[in-house]
């Protein structure tokens, strides 16, 4: 049975027919090399395609990532304001939920927006932004609410990417 999760993962950074062909090649060699080899190379090919997407147009990726920072600024400060301006008890569940709604929702919408701004490089920009953000958040000792922001950013971008491919957007399907 065809496992489409690999095709979906690879199609985040390349066209869906290329993703299908690469997944098929790896599946064909799986019997010879084993499952561990297969999944290791699924990860390595995904990283290679991401790196290729960034190195092909680094300035575009940088600009899209900067646009992502600007878009996320409003919900980020909105979340902080909601906690500090309203009289929630410190560390209360209501305050945490409000913060999570602003930050996670903002990250989700930022991911979707970046794919709309740049269907070709948006996913690479989101992945780069997510990795840098996660490193900074870990470095700053952020709690779980903060640490999950990059995951929501990627989820939004991944959702928009899938929707674009499903909708047959020409620019996405025929991108390099």
């Amino acid at each position, binding site marked *: *049975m*065809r*496992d489409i999760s690999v*095709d979906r993962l690879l199609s985040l950074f*390349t066209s869906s*027919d*290329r993703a*299908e*062909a*690469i*997944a*098929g*090649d*790896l*599946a*064909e*060699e799986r019997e010879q090399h084993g499952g561990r080899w297969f999944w290791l*190379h699924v990860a*390595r*090919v995904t*990283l*290679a*395609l991401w*790196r*290729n997407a960034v190195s092909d147009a680094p300035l575009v990726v940088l600009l899209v990532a900067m646009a992502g920072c600007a878009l996320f600024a409003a919900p980020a400060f909105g979340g902080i304001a909601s906690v500090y301006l309203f009289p929630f008890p410190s560390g209360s569940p209501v305050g945490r939920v409000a913060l999570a709604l602003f930050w996670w929702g903002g990250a989700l919408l930022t991911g979707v927006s970046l794919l709309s701004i740049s269907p070709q490089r948006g996913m690479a920009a989101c992945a780069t932004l997510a990795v840098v953000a996660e490193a900074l958040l870990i470095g700053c000792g952020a709690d779980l609410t903060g640490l999950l922001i990059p995951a929501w950013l990627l989820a939004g971008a991944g959702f928009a990417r899938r929707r674009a491919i499903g909708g047959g957007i020409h620019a996405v399907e025929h991108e*390099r």
Partner: protein
Amino acid sequence: MAAAVNLGEFEQLILLAILRLRDDAYGVTIRAELAERTGRQVAPGAMYTALERLESKGLITSRMTDPTPLRGGRAKRQVTVTAAGREALTRAVQAYDRLLDGLDLVRGKHA
């Protein structure tokens, strides 16, 4: 007139492997051909990004085949070298020939 495309060593190897494989050139067979003829175990990621680069330069073209059960119901992406690809490869080989002229590296005179 379009500027001549310069090929890296890896790109030359891939183009040569595709030419050797004729109508059966796709990811798995290209990697196998490179391993057999050059002794290099090419990482799939490096090869697929090189293939994308070659296609974007117009040096190869590709087409999807029918899905096969061996591949989990997925199609192959068969690639062929274009006229521009052959031309770029010929130029690269001619440059090697000119540089090798007078040297005998294989027999070790200048090794």
